């Protein structure tokens, strides 16, 4: 039972990071299709930083730096130049795949993976209960989500973020610098989502091509299924992670084909959007550019 919970936690951490970023971005009105790309960039930069410095902490800093850089490019296109958020969002993900592959060849002369990089603890210890609890990124994941919730509902900045996502014109009319708030929110989402990728790279002690494997979209599914509310989104992240853990643990029994377990987050999201039980309603100005 304890092993099950710990494994669920380990799987949930990248979802928590990315979903926290997704909440900030979407509540500010910027569609978070880019989480996957931010994660992948973060994972690659973390592997790069950790490899060349020998310290996972430098890896964290490098990963966040890469994620923020990607986020700023996204903000430049969608906020400064008011380009369509969906188009640029999709392109950002393609860009992350291309750029990480290109520099994987350039830096490590490989098309599949980086060499082993320092992470937190040895690989054998890290997968155990103690190793998981000793990994600072696990704690950071839990704290990040709580911090996002607190910021969103308890600080003036959070109020501005929500205003920018719901009624940007009204916010602007009372002096909220909507564009600047959105810039900050997208940058923050880059920080959070890239940490999810950083966790993956340092946990597996290497970067592998396309290692985020759709986790950014599962995080987006969690954001929508959790109705853009940090508490519910946290529950959704753990729910999706628990389903995955079950699937891994029951794999030997072959009760349910793994493909059906993979579908769970996506099916639930579509059900939530269709409004069969408690319709998910997105921020009113999501996807809407401001002048």
């Amino acid at each position: 039972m304890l092993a099950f919970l710990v494994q669920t936690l380990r799987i949930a951490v990248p979802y928590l990071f990315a979903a926290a970023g997704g909440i900030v971005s979407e509540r500010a009105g910027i569609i978070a299709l880019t989480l996957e790309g931010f994660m992948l960039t973060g994972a690659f930069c973390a592997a790069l930083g950790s490899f060349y410095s020998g310290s996972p902490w430098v890896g964290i800093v490098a990963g966040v730096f890469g994620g923020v850089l990607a986020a700023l490019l996204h903000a430049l296109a969608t906020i400064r130049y008011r380009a369509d958020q969906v188009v640029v969002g999709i392109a950002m993900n393609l860009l992350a795949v291309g750029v990480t592959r290109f520099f994987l060849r350039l830096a490590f002369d490989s098309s599949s993976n980086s060499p082993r990089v320092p992470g937190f603890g040895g690989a054998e210890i890290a997968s155990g209960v103690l190793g998981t609890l000793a990994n600072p990124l696990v704690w950071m994941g839990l704290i990040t989500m709580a911090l996002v919730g607190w910021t969103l509902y308890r600080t003036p900045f959070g109020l501005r973020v929500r205003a920018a996502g719901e009624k940007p014109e009204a916010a602007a009319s009372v002096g909220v610098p909507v564009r600047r708030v959105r810039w900050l929110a997208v940058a923050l989402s880059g920080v959070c989502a890239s940490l999810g990728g950083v966790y993956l790279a340092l946990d597996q002690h290497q970067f592998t091509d396309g290692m985020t494997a759709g986790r950014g979209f599962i995080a987006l599914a969690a954001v929508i299924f959790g109705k853009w509310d940090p508490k519910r989104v946290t529950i959704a992240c753990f729910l999706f992670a628990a389903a995955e853990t079950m699937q891994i643990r029951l794999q030997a029994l072959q009760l349910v084909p793994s493909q059906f377990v993979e579908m769970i987050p996506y099916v639930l999201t579509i059900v939530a959007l269709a409004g069969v039980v408690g319709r998910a309603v997105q921020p009113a100005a999501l996807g809407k550019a401001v002048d």
Partner: protein
Amino acid sequence: MTGTPPDATAERRQRWRERIEESILPPLVALTIAAVVGDLLIITFGQAPGEVYRQLLEGTWGNAYGFGQVIYKATTLTFTGLAVALGIRAGLFNIGAESQLAAGGFAAALAGLAIPGATPGIIAVIICIVAAALGGGAVGAVPGVLRARFGASEVIVTIMLNFIVLALLNYFVATHLAVAETLHTREINAGKLARLADMSPLFSGSAANMTLLLAIAVAGAVWWYLFRTRAGYELRAVGLQPDAAEYGGVRVGNVWAKTMIVSGALAGLGGINYVLGYKHYYEEGFGAGSGFLGIAVALVGRNHPVGVVIAALLFATLSQGGLAVNALVPKQMVDVLTAVVIIAVATAVPEVRRALAASRRREPGTGNREPFIANPGPSSQFPVPTSQQ
């Protein structure tokens, strides 16, 4: 003085100049941005940009095999590009072309496996084509109906559906249909299409096949549908102003549902190219991103069937060209370039337009960006020519 008064002529000339500026400047700016990024990447890798571009062209349009491969890839991209373009014309963003394409190919393979080998060629081909359209259309129906009935964002639904459908197809193939030790089905019994290489040395050794003709015919059909039929007029009206269209008597929900089904069917037809024309079986992951590239194709092709065909050739050239230059620079460079082209076009086109408009001291066209859920009309970001024909 006979004919038009001089100021009318001047005005017409002025309008022509503006139209040319508007259609040439934005892509030029986007292309320049992409070229600069491409040069930087090539220099980073320690190569000479000129040499890389020369090899890229030589490996694609410069020899029969490369040319044929470009044609083959452009064929699939034409279908997915048309699928995305049709959706955008109706104000819908179909990001599900990837899974619709896979479902179409899967359905075509199923049909080809189910019919007896003695079926006359033309009938077998027609059955498989219909199956492909139905397969893709069925996947497209889900976001279409959910959008029409519940207002569910088709962007999210199609993204989520990509994962669901691809996982489902994986399951069917892996557990029931695959030839042992592979990820593909048996070869279809009937319905194979001829390779162009068998007819002309122009395509020597390449995968290009008769599906090319189907792609061109379908592009023509989409043009005719959009600009020459009542349904197409309604579709465009819904895309530009759903509220006005509704007020004018168009049943917007029906148009959305119908458009997504047709869009899915178009993407599904792309599966023909691989299943009937190339390998003659369904293989996991045969789409290889062609569905997502369809978004780029539609965007660069400005959602016009003719533009889509041209843009499909452009991106097919990039994709095939990546393989041609792989010895000099990683082929992943073209993935980066593709993304940069999309971002540059999405950013530069509206921006240059605004700048042009501002320089003519007009009201900059910026006031009508709406949230996509409340007003799904293509935001002014999309280069939708409003007064075609």
